[in-house]
Structures are given as structure tokens and as C-alpha cells.
């Protein structure tokens, strides 16, 4: 599924959008960055409650399609700026990671 379609279906808030035509293949949920580095893979969706600059770095390094910040956690201005500069798709939702994951599973991801 393309990211644009997924954003629409899950009613995600777009914080920064760079490449909404990218494919989504799988999901990883985590807030400990070392675990995310080790387990998240390219083209996945990464769901987290972290909203600082290093999230953008980890998103770039893992090559995930997008980051969804769950439970409407605050995202630092510097992180938004960096995501925009580096071309990272940064999204947000009031839903919990579990709710998001359930919906993604229903969509076959």
C-alpha cells in the first residue's frame, strides 16, 4: 500500500511530507532507539512516542517509509525542521500504538 492511501485510511496528521507515493511494507513499534535501529527495516512504518531530532536520524538510517508519532506526543520544532530538510515523512495520530497497529493489520500491512 502507498503511504498516501494509508494516511487517508488512518486519518493521520501530516507534519512533514516528502514522498507520499512510497510503499509501506511492515511495521515496527518502539521508543528505544537502539532497538529501532536493530529491528526496523527499510519501507516499514515506525510507530513511536519520541518526538525529538534523533528520531529523524534513526528514520533516515533505517530507511523507514514514515514515522508515526502516537498519542499526539509533542514533536520538537527542531525535529520538524530536520525532517523537512532531510525528506523524512513525519506523521502524527491521537491513537495509541496498539490502535494504529490493529488498523494497519486490518489493512493487510
Amino acid at each position, binding site marked *: 500500500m502507498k503511504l498516501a492511501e494509508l494516511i487517508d485510511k488512518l486519518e493521520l496528521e501530516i507534519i512533514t511530507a516528502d514522498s507520499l507515493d512510497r510503499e509501506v511494507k511492515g511495521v515496527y513499534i518502539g*521508543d*528505544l*532507539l*537502539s*532497538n*529501532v*535501529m*536493530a529491528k526496523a*527495516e*527499510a519501507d516499514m512504518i515506525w510507530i*513511536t512516542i*519520541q518526538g*525529538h*531530532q*534523533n*528520531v529523524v*536520524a*534513526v528514520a*533516515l*538510517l533505517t530507511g523507514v517509509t514514515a514515522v508515526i508519532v502516537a498519542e499526539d506526543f509533542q514533536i520538537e520544532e*527542531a525535529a520538524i525542521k530536520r525532517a523537512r530538510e*532531510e525528506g523524512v515523512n513525519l506523521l502524527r495520530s491521537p491513537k495509541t500504538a496498539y490502535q494504529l497497529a490493529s488498523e494497519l493489520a486490518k489493512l493487510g500491512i
Partner: protein
Amino acid sequence: MKEQMILKSRIEKGDFNRGGENSSKLKELLRKLGVTADINRRVTIVTYELEMNIIIHSDGGGINVYVTPDAVKVVAEDSGPGIEDLEKALQPGYSTANDEIRNMGFGAGMGLNNVEYFSDELEIDTGPGKRTRITAVINL
């Protein structure tokens, strides 16, 4: 065969804002050199963890990366204060990071384990009050 340096960087203590910068640069360099995505991922993870360790735990240091026809070698060196108990530091979940750092999602005690897991060879030269030099080799 002679090795060639492809990245040379200085990393400041506490410079979280630039965390991951060197790993990103390296990932792009290796991609251009035609290194496979899988090897690139492993080198990137190792470099990122070593980079963050210097930022979180050291008084500052740097990372140099070398390539040979057979391997990528990542060398992280800092000016101290050294790892007090290396055996403990290598245990999954063990960390000396403070709460502020943990709240950012670091200090989970998985950094060095990731380095160990994703490297083919690992050499750690450290000790209390000493500089730390870590050499990680990832075979091509």
C-alpha cells in the same frame, strides 16, 4: 591490501542534535561505492551506536571509517573517561546513562550489544580513566 579512509569525523560530547550525522553520511558513501543494502545496514547500525556512545558517554572523540577490498572497518576513539566495567557494559540492558538520556530513548543498554551483533570482528580497548578505542569490522 591497503585500506582507504572514507570517513573522518570529530564528535563532541553531548552533541545530540548532530547524532546520526556521520552514520547518514557513511550510508550514502557506501551506497555510492556499491556496497549491498544488507552490509550497508550493518555498518550503519554499528557506526550509529558508536557515534551515540561518544556523544552520551565520552568527553568527545571521533570516528574513522576505512574500506579494504574485503571489509569495512569502523574505528571509534574518544579521550575518556573509559568504560569502568567492560564485562557489565556488554551485558544487554546494562547502562550508565541518566534518566534524561533514557527518556529520549537512549541508554537502553543495547548499544554495544548491537555493535557486537552486527560486526564480524570487534576489539575494545578501554579501562577506567583511559581513552576508549573500539574497532569493528564488517566483512564485505
